[in-house]
């Protein structure tokens, strides 16, 4: 898996085949450049970066304390002190949105990481033991979890465990791991039969180590793309669960909770619903564009289009 020739570079397309020989920093740089080339990938990336910024640096970026109540000025419209207005307790909506970014990123990142690690791990094991009982058992597990409508399963888990940030992450991760599992399993199966695996085996390397070594780069691309889209959906579900009161607990500022409050006061203050709705939508668009850009960047065939 050598680096592509100079010809491709001249054609303006950066080679992004992942190999184990190249430095990760190189790969990253080249991937990012390719993503940006895709229409919208740039904007998606910028907004995602913005969200990350808000998540990490909420306390410095946010203009006010998200929990600071000011009953005298509740339901206020936009003003200089409160760019997006205030909610039913007089809290600054903009600050709550920024802190909501933090929850959104934490939940989605956590859930996606957990589910992808567990899923890929199980998927590789399953693929490696193709045909044996272990394989059938793991597939059975995947199929069971996949049979549930995802949000309903997450709902049930949080309902049983009790609403909290951690439980939300666990519940969401549980509903998502089979998808990564199946992708990983499929990759494992195809790599298993590949000629270079047989060749390496013929040279005396241990089968499992070979497969592990060759699967990782092959899996990375589809999994990373899944991650991007998944984060978007997780953000939505966290909001949904919190909207139902089955997610993060108030007074934590999550977009879902803001929507819940907004719903209660829908007749009084449209702004309470509008801003978190906009935030969620834009987060979704941003992640979609970014992961679409990632997908095109990582798929050598796609780049020909």
């Amino acid at each position: 898996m050598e680096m592509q020739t100079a010809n491709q570079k001249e054609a303006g397309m950066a080679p992004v085949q992942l190999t184990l020989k190249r430095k990760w920093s190189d790969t990253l740089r080249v991937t990012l450049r390719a993503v940006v080339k895709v229409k919208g990938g740039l904007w998606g990336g910028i907004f995602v970066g913005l969200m990350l910024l808000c998540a990490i640096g909420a306390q410095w970026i946010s203009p006010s304390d998200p929990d600071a109540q000011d009953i005298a000025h509740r339901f206020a419209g936009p003003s200089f002190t409160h760019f997006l207005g205030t909610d039913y307790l007089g809290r600054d909506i903009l600050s709550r949105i920024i802190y909501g970014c933090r929850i959104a990123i934490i939940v989605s990142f956590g859930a996606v990481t957990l589910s992808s690690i567990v899923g890929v791990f199980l998927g590789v094991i399953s693929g490696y033991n193709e045909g044996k009982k272990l394989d059938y058992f793991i597939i059975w597990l995947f199929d069971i979890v996949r049979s549930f409508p995802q949000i309903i399963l997450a709902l049930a888990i949080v309902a049983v465990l009790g609403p909290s940030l951690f439980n939300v992450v666990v519940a969401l991760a549980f509903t998502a791991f089979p998808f990564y599992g199946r992708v990983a399993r499929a990759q494992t199966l195809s790599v298993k039969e590949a000629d270079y695996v047989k060749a390496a085996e013929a040279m005396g390397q241990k089968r499992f180590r070979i497969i592990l070594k060759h699967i990782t780069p092959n899996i990375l691309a589809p999994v990373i793309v899944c991650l991007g889209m998944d984060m978007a959906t997780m953000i939505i579900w966290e909001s949904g669960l919190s909207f139902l009161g089955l997610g993060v607990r108030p007074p934590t500022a999550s977009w879902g909770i803001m929507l819940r409050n907004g719903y209660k006061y829908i007749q009084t203050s449209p702004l309470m619903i509008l801003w978190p709705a906009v935030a969620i939508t834009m987060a979704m668009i941003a992640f979609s564009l970014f992961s679409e850009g990632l997908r095109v960047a990582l798929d050598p065939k796609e780049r020909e289009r």
Partner: protein
Amino acid sequence: MLKYTIKRTLWMIPTLLGVLIILFSLTYLMPGDPASAMLGPRATPELVAELNQRLHLDKAMPVRLGYYLLGVVKGDLGTSVWSGHKVSSLIAQALPHTVLLAITSLGIAAFIGILLGAFSALRRDSPIGGAVTIISLLGVAVPDFVAALLLMLLFCIQIPILPALGAGAEGDLVDVAVHLILPATALGIGWVGYLSRLMRESMLDVLDSDYIRTARAFAVPRDIITYRYALKNAVIPCITVIGLGVGKLLGGAVFVEIIFSRPGLGKLIVDAVYARDFPMVQGGILVATILFVFANLLADISYAFVDPRIQYG
């Protein structure tokens, strides 16, 4: 054809068994004592003991599992702790509303989405293609419950022309239909967006294919090429997607029912969760899951109808 259906259905059995096992084991996840949790503030030692006995919570696990599975097979999903009615009858009352909502929104969305997609593929140069793309991006981006809230904000509060709550007076078709407009739109908007884009791409792909070129080389009339040859091939990925999407739809229906206060399976489940009515939650989720699995099965089978290559695979 039949063989394929049977094969697929048989594989469902162990899967459903697993589903039942998971639902069953949910009780074990609950922190604390299930019976007191279910009774909540009403819990007195006598009531707790009575509930324990009734729900067999005091027996060993294999026994409980046995009771549970037996009940399910008989169609008895237990009794709602909160209302005292049988779970199965409560579900039977609520289900038609959800099904109506799902079918309406999916049906209309599929119809509009597929047509829009096909149309924008055929009129490649007109601005319609661009407009469709933008609309579809927006449609996909806004999650269904957010869309529901925004629609409610716009059409019930700001411009009060549509009813916000309820499903409409039973038997009055017009009223029911009017009450369906916003919820169905909220659920369907994402689908219209997604399907129209998918259909457009699929159609463009198909129109470029070799077999369409063959048809053109033999002067097959344009409308036959488009509406028979191309459409049947292009629709295939849409059907798969629709099948897979029923699950998302069920999830979305939950929110839409809560937001618009419509009776339905989703509202039933969520209300049961609030009330810690465990048998109701279990039963509701079971039915929702069965519906989901069944819908996927149907989608798979209909896929085989459309694409004859599948059955032989």
